[in-house]
């Protein structure tokens, strides 16, 4: 097969070497590796390569090791002739990273594309290739200074056309050195001269530019301020340094919960607590004295305060008086706004929940998008080698532990791969399945037992009501619940030691599942107890206050038991382990996170009946942070098993959203729609349900006149009617289905592209082999000719050889 390979002349060879790299020359050096070649060809300043590794014997040996895989594998690079190597070293793909010109042209392309799509967001996670596109921009194979300068000028011009924020983002994301970025920035900040028309328009654009700069500076100042406020930077650094990303994820989750509570508390403080404190209603009875017990039970002198539902008035505050009450004079400031408290209570709580819901769903989907990718389960070896070293770890012993973990992980991966053929016998599999079923049954049985215990105890408490002077007995039910929540997980852990899972991640998920079921079922029973039974038995009293106080008690006792658990579980265990000579206990991330989720669920359940409960929860979280941190640093060691930190963060946030927040939202909706509020206290006394306050207001609007008639119309046809709900659900289902189809299509495209890359690779190897054979043939023919010349005319035998 005739194959003509046109080898372009590399201009750099013209000075010192012969034009054609395939021709023979006495001066041509022997290159045995790409590394040496690239060193010669790169145009940087004199580089002292002090600590570079010795010349790699690797590539040759590696080629031999890897070559038995594929049929068309490239032959050892050491076998290539120097000429071939020289050509290969100037391939476009080799210029990446070495040539600034390549990076600059790549970013030029990116900015052009960005500018053409005006309002598209930044290039998050698009993972564009660093290979300069030969089609879009005419890239020569060498990187002479002149070409680079041209590209640079073009890049600067394009950057100037971008809005300021995008420009900053683009500049920061470039893999250039800081000095070069500063030069680029200097050039882009220079205002464009002789481009804009003189006159008012130029003034306008300059003004706009100045405004944009000012806003940008303001944004930066705000960010700096926020970061100064962000507490615990050094604490988190220390924790991450000693224990790694997995334990750090627990503390970051705690921080997230704190943020959620702040979000929840602010509207409540502004619209409920603040207003009611400014216009205090008449006290419902004599105020009892403060004894220390109130901090635990939430009753006593806390009862008739802004802390609980019962304190809030059911009328309009700050109303300008219609006529002189009791014959007295009206207050002169009659021009102030009236404030309808029941409406405010309903809407503020609803809006706070809605905002929390949106934030949760957004952060959950964001987290999900970050951690789950198409094909993310493949490539375990590569991911272990490249992504498992946690660079945050700074202590020697923690670092050593990491080395051990990674070694174990690699060994396990290799063992798993080698064992893939081995299958368990039918008997063994049946035995394992039976064991798993038994353990699950036992765990569910324990859960059922705990539920029945809580139910029986609560019924017993209803039948024998607590006397007014024995308030401490109110703590009985929360105490029982907390004890069961403390003890049952240890039982679960003991049972889980019987079943031996292959994958440690599965173990964690199963443990999380079981604990979650226990906690949610217990809370469910308690909710039934409050809304189903307590409402009936507390008819003549303020049952909402009671429920609020119960939740307060549960929150406080939950915190106390968490302290107890830390003390005994971690400190006690460490003392015992040290006595026995074993290592420190591990920090149980799953159990601690579930406790956090449980506490947050309580806060969400109680918001309707106790608007200040999020504040209590915030104080609890703050104290918990310091206690857990101290205990961790003193008593625990990092988990031995590898832990997928980002997957677990996604799981935590999902658990927070689905059973926890959803349950609280259902509880809230049921309380608002179906339960009759008490007639003695609170903003909804006298109504049939809390929601009726809204309906009353809508009816009043209807009577008010035609100007606001759209709101009652919206209410009647969109909120009370069920048809729009069905329509919305159908629409949502259709959107989800379409998205699933799109993802399927993308998966197919990915596999096609992978095939294409593989084919291109084979083509490349084929061409390299051809190039190599052509050069060899030329060299051999050249060698034959010189031999002919050197040796005086030989016989026909020699001639035939050439």
């Amino acid at each position, binding site marked *: 097969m005739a194959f003509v390979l046109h080898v372009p002349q590399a201009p750099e060879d013209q000075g010192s070497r012969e034009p054609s790299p395939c021709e023979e020359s006495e001066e041509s050096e022997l290159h045995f590796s790409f590394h040496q070649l690239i060193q010669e060809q790169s145009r940087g300043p004199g580089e002292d*390569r002090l600590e570079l590794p010795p010349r790699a014997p690797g590539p040759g040996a590696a080629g031999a090791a890897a070559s038995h895989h594929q049929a068309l594998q490239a032959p050892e690079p050491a076998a290539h002739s120097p000429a071939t190597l020289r050509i290969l070293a100037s391939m476009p793909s080799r210029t990446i990273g070495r040539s600034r010109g390549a990076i600059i042209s790549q970013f030029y392309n990116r900015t052009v594309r960005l500018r053409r799509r005006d309002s598209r967001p930044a290039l998050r996670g698009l993972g564009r290739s660093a290979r300069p596109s030969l089609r879009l921009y005419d890239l020569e194979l060498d990187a002479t200074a002149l070409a680079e300068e041209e590209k640079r000028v073009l890049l600067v011009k394009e950057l100037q056309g971008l809005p300021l924020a995008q420009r900053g983002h683009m500049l920061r994301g470039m893999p250039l050195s800081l000095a070069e970025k500063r030069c680029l920035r200097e050039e882009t900040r220079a205002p464009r001269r002789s481009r804009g028309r003189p006159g008012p328009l130029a003034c306008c654009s300059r003004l706009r530019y100045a405004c944009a700069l000012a806003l940008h500076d303001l944004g930066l100042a705000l960010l700096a301020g926020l970061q100064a406020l962000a507490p615990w930077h050094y604490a988190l650094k220390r924790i991450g340094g000693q224990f790694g990303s997995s334990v750090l994820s627990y503390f970051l989750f705690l921080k997230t919960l704190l943020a959620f509570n702040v979000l929840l508390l602010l509207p409540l403080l502004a619209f409920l607590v603040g207003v009611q404190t400014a216009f205090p209603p008449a006290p419902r009875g004599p105020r009892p004295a403060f004894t220390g017990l109130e901090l635990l039970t939430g009753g006593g002198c806390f009862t008739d305060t802004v802390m609980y539902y019962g304190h809030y008035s059911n009328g309009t505050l700050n109303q300008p008086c219609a006529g002189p009450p009791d014959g007295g004079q009206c207050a002169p400031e009659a021009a102030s706004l009236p404030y309808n408290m029941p409406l405010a209570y309903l809407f503020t709580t609803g809006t706070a929940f809605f905002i929390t819901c949106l934030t949760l769903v957004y952060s959950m989907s964001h987290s999900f998008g970050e951690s789950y990718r198409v094909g993310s389960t493949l490539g375990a070896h590569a991911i272990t080698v490249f992504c498992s070293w946690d660079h945050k770890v700074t202590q020697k012993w923690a670092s050593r532990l990491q080395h051990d973990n990674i*070694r174990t992980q690699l060994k396990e991966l290799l063992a798993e791969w080698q064992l893939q053929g081995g299958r368990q016998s039918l008997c063994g599999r049946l035995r394992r399945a039976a064991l798993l079923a038994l353990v699950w049954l036992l765990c569910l049985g324990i859960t059922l037992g705990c539920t029945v215990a809580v139910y029986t105890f609560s019924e017993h408490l209803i039948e024998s009501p607590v006397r007014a002077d024995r308030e401490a007995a109110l703590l009985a039910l929360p105490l029982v619940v907390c004890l069961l929540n403390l003890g049952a997980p240890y039982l679960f852990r003991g049972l889980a030691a019987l079943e031996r899972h292959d994958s440690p991640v599965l173990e964690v998920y199963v443990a999380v599942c079981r604990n979650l079921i226990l906690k949610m079922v217990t809370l469910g029973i308690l909710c039934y107890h409050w809304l189903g039974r307590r409402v009936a038995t507390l008819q003549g009293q303020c049952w909402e206050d009671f429920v609020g106080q119960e939740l307060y008690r549960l929150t406080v006792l939950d915190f106390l038991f968490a302290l107890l658990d830390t003390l005994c579980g971690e400190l006690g265990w460490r003392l015992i382990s040290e006595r026995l000579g074993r290592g420190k206990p591990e920090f149980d991330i799953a159990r601690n996170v579930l406790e956090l989720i449980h506490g947050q669920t309580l806060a969400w359940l109680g918001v309707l009946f106790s608007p200040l409960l999020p504040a209590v929860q915030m104080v609890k979280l703050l104290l918990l942070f310091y206690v857990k941190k101290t205990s961790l640093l003193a008593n625990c060691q990092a988990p031995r098993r590898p832990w997928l930190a980002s997957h677990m963060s996604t799981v935590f946030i999902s658990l927070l959203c689905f059973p926890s927040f959803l349950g609280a939202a259902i509880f809230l909706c049921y309380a608002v729609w179906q339960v009759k509020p008490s007639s003695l206290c609170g903003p909804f006394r006298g109504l049939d349900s809390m929601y009726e306050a809204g309906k009353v207001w809508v009816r009043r609007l209807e009577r008010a006149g035609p100007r606001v008639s759209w709101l009652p119309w919206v209410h009647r046809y969109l909120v009370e009617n069920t048809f729009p709900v069905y329509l919305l659900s159908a629409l949502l289902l259709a959107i989800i289905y379409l998205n699933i189809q799109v993802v399927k299509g993308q998966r197919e495209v990915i596999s096609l592209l992978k095939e294409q890359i593989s084919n291109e690779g084979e083509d490349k190897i084929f061409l390299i082999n051809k190039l190599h054979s052509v050069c060899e043939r030329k060299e051999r023919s050249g060698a034959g000719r010189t031999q002919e010349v050197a040796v005086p005319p030989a016989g026909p035998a020699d001639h035939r050889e050439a």
Partner: protein
Amino acid sequence: MGNKQTVFTHEQLEEYQDCTFFTRKEIMRLFYRYQDLAPQLVPLDYTSCPDVKVPYELIGTMPELKDNPFRQRIAQVFSEDGDGHMTLDNFLDMFSVMSEMAPRDLKAYYAFKIYDFNNDDYICMWDLEQTVTKLTRGELSAEEVSLVCEKVLDEADGDHDGRLSLEDFQNMILRAPDFLSTFHIRI
């Protein structure tokens, strides 16, 4: 607070702020960390842009880096001449890329350069073996190491040429959600 410091001019601080992921306060904090490494060498006045390089031996003793098996490569990649001796610009660049706010692409690019021990723009078998040896402190046998490297190439090499290019590496990083949290140094 920024007006009271005399180390940088206002414009210099703004430049640093725009070109890295740090705020003014963090840049000053980083500068003092840099200065602490070599108090005799690093002047307290950078308004005239002095050309000062802190040698690698001192950089390698920083508490954030001293137990990192890749510290030598990290310093080499970010230093100007590839020898590990870093100027203040290199120092800021290094911690900016390794900070929380750096995007995935940027981190993947530098991670690729770090793992490319022989600087030939490809991660070949030899580079992989070096990486695995450093990761496990030499406690895996040679056979296990080469087995692991083969598996890695099987999984990540798209065009089957026996080595990983930057695209292969980035493709693999996309599938590793943990990368952003592990390739992170908190300073």
